[in-house]
């Protein structure tokens, strides 16, 4: 089985992020990781490879040179090869463009199954997987929590629905996005780390996938970030004073009625 995994390198949840003075761009501390939900996709691909004979796991990202680190992490975990589609000078704010490029890569590379995280934890868009499957005209299931192979052409997946689970059968090729709970991503073995350190990661120019530069550059974006804003600070904590618990409760009820207006 030819398995493709699309990943994204995102800022670490603990990285310091500042809004630059133009209000339209961010200054991010140099701490990046493989996207949380993509780790599940990589892990699931590696587990599938162990189960299905003659399988190959190829990982790909559309990002800057720095993203090679995230690709190496996937190789350290057990992926066979990785490609960087270089977005230097082409950084887009429109996920549709990213999806087009990834779909272009998938067409060129060939695949039986595509896995990716259900969303990136930086922009939280959660739409790349869906859009790639549309461009490729293949079935898609979001946020799967289980994957079983029936045969070379058929798989079953589970995803959570309100109050239960939904189990589906899917004819390959297909695209699935992974949700927390599907697996426990492994800590890489040192043999994997060594392989990853030495791995040659080819850099693909997006224009080589059949896109003219003006189709994918910033001007082609139909979505533009106008500004970033920090969350509003929380209102100060109010400590309810009183001699006795009874008195405090009375005051609390009064405030909930008159100030918060929730009673």
């Amino acid at each position, binding site marked *: 089985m030819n398995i493709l995994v699309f990943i994204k390198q995102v800022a670490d949840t603990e990285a310091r992020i500042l809004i630059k003075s133009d209000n339209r761009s961010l200054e991010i501390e140099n701490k990046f*990781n493989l996207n949380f939900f993509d780790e599940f996709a990589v892990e699931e691909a590696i587990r599938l490879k162990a189960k299905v004979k003659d399988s190959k796991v190829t990982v790909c990202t559309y990002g800057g040179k720095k993203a*090679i*680190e995230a690709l*190496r*992490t996937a190789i*350290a975990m057990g992926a066979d090869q990785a490609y960087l589609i270089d977005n230097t000078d082409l950084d887009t704010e429109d996920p549709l463009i990213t999806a087009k490029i990834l779909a272009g890569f998938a067409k060129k590379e060939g695949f039986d199954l595509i896995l990716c995280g259900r969303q990136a934890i930086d922009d939280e868009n959660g739409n790349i997987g869906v859009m790639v499957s549309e461009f490729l005209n293949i079935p898609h299931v979001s946020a799967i929590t289980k994957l079983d192979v029936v045969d070379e052409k058929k798989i079953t997946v589970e995803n959570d629905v309100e109050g239960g689970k939904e189990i589906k059968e899917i004819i390959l090729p297909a695209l699935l996005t992974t949700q927390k709970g599907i697996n426990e991503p492994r*800590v*890489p*073995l*040192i*043999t994997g*780390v*060594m392989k*990853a*350190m030495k791995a040659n990661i080819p850099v693909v120019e997006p224009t080589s996938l059949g896109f003219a530069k003006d189709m994918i550059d910033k001007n082609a974006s139909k979505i533009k970030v106008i500004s970033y804003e920090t969350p509003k600070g929380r209102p100060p904590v109010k400590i309810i004073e009183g001699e006795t618990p009874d008195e405090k409760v009375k005051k609390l009820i009064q405030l909930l009625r008159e100030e918060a207006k929730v009673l």
Partner: protein
Amino acid sequence: MDFTLSEQQEFFKKIIVDTVDRMVAPKAQEIDEKDEFPWELWREFTALGYLGLRYPEEIGGMNADKIMCMTFYEEIARGSVGFAQSVIMNILMGTYFLYRFGSDSIKERCLFPAMRGEKIATMCFTEDQSGSDLGATRTTAVKDGNGWRINGTKMWITNGPICDFCTVLATTDPSKGLKGLNFFLVEKGTPGFSSGQVLNKLGCRGTVTGELVFDNVWVPDENFLGDELGKGVIYVGDILDEVRLMTGAMALGIAKGAYNEALEFAKKRVAFGQPIGNYQLIREKFADMDTLMNAARLMIYYGAWMLENGMDSRLIAAEAKMFATEVCLKVVDETTRIYGANAFAYEYTPQRYFRDARFLLYGGGTHEVLKDFIGRSIIGKL
């Protein structure tokens, strides 16, 4: 001058940081509280293959350069120094002489299993009356037939009570002082070899440290680890710089762990209506800590770079060990001040860093011995 890490070193650092954050750091408090060797973590962690860090790929190692080794030592100590000590003993001191001088059979029996974490290694220098003063070693090895008969007691042995084998320093000729010192391999199960008292330590808990007793222990000639008799102290010199830099890197790791906790606390703890990180006296502490840690880091990695490039790193290694450890002591102290009274409670982590830091004062040479060595090296014989 180029201070950048290579892409490989950068990647290795990232992986080891993640691994420690996921596997080791969450267990640190429990390891300290229980003060028992964390067997389960040992099995999980060693299965990843890091114990072969320094050794060639052909024998299952990683062939990591010295910069990567320091990164590893620093990060694992940041996670849990109690666990780090046991791991590093297998990686460095506990296996060094076996790799360098061991026969194929010894390597098969001891080195390779130790690199896989299946056997626990240790190295025995210290005795009740001698540590830095190796010339005062009283454990003896006397030629007996096709082997050696060893008698003596070793103290403060990291992994000692649980080790599967040890490299023991003994004198074959007490009249020769330092020139009479040699190393021998002693394996668990050898008649007369046993573990004695287990020490109840202030810090670095989780590492089992204690006494090893050699009561008329006989080992075959194969177990003599060296090219020729009397060169033991020279071999110590060959590994000493790396051990000192490693100790400095561990100190830096503890400091970083404490500093991170202090930083989180300073951002969240509110006093007089605002986070304490807004107060200048608290900010000053972070300015000082960051400056000192950066200085220590530069020294350690500069030393590692010299070592990697075959340069004489004796002075810088001694200085870096001493400086980084003193910096660590300062940082763990400041952390307890930033944390306030909570730092004094076992429920919180600063007290653990505070206790752990003290142990690094002794390993790799006390600072009194190191200062004398540094001063003597600079001034020379007058």
